[in-house]
């Protein structure tokens, strides 16, 4: 489902990772680890197509469900309206399953602005379910979740993987997931190689 070969990624003109190689097939979870600032987020942004890589190849499905540091929620809209909106953008399944999975039914009619940080994150994760995408690309999905809600996330991830999905996740906690492989990115760390300037990149 996802094939990454000899990939180099850069941020702000600094090459962060080079020679990254991995592949992921349906039913697998890949956990990326590494210190802060190593380039995990940049790698995920490349995989989701938000950013171009410096060199190397990425073979990914045309649309992936990306979840970044920000949840992309509209505070003036209710929980349900947020989910319905994203479901319609992705032509995904109805939001009921996602509301169940993250125990959001009670909050469905609350404006998203009134949610706590953990509740917002749950709503952000529920968005992945209504996307209907096979590949989930998640950047620190468990931030601000408590133990109980991490368990909900794990269950949702299991469900997704068992139905033929896959996920790339960066996280600092132990996911304890049976089909999860851990890839430590430290060995791909680039050593101070400056890439071409952003201006040259834009010209290419």
């Amino acid at each position, binding site marked *: 489902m996802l094939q990454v070969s000899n990939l180099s990624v850069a941020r702000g003109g600094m090459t962060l990772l080079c020679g990254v190689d991995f592949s992921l097939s349906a039913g697998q979870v890949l956990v990326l680890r590494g210190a802060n600032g190593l380039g995990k987020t940049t790698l995920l942004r490349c995989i989701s197509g938000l950013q171009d890589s410096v060199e190397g190849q990425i073979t990914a499905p*045309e649309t992936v469900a990306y979840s970044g540091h920000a949840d992309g929620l509209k505070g003036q809209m209710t929980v349900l309206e947020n989910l319905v909106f994203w479901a319609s953008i*992705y032509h995904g399944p109805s939001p009921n399953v996602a509301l169940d999975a993250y125990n959001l039914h009670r909050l469905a009619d609350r404006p998203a602005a009134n949610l706590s940080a953990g509740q917002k994150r749950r709503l952000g994760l529920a968005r992945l379910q209504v996307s209907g995408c096979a590949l989930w690309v998640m950047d620190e999905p468990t931030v601000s979740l408590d133990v109980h809600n991490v368990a909900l996330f794990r269950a949702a991830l299991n469900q997704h993987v068992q139905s033929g999905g896959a996920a790339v996740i960066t996280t600092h906690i132990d996911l304890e997931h049976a089909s999860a492989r851990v890839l430590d990115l430290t060995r791909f760390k680039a050593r101070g190689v400056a890439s071409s300037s952003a201006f040259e990149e834009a010209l290419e």
Partner: protein
Amino acid sequence: MIQLFLRDVGLSVRSGGGFGLALIFFLIVVTLIPFALGPDQSALAVIAPGVLWLGALLACLLSLDRIFGLDFEDGTLDLLATSPLPLEAVYVAKASAHWLTTGLPLSLAAPVLGVLLNLDYETGKILCLSLLLGTPALSLIGAFGASLTLGVKRGGLLLSLLVLPLYVPSLIFGSQAVRLVGQGLEFDVALILLSAISLGAAAILPFASGAALRINLR
């Protein structure tokens, strides 16, 4: 795309959306002009087309940075960029929503406020028509400028500097059409050119804006 359009319209009407901002600004400008220039009715009628067009243009400028800025800040734009919706469609949806919530109300309010500037009924009709034809260009060019200045913190100044020169042709032809009606002359050409600017912007800018968004999201 229609869902994004409806969402943007809905958000701008809800609290904190800034729907009334442009309209109130327009109202303030137009009501203050007679106080500033004195009650000479014939003088007011002469400057009315220019003032009304200029007021509408500046009112339109006020809300431009919200078009993409809010979605950029809360991460929605990243998610839209990874969704099946192309960024060109995101631009079209957002520019149309901006027009519906600023350009259209401004066009409809202009002939009513024109009464304050001694604008007669016939000229008011053409003013409304010229704004209806011209304001789409303002929203389209403005949204393009907003996509260029995305990610620049407090980019309002840069946005205005970029966008205002591009607004000049619409302003010239729009106010000229209304002035010509006042003088009882043919005004078709000005209106046609005004529509041409809007149509040209609608044809070209989605692609330019899509490219600008892609670069700024990196």
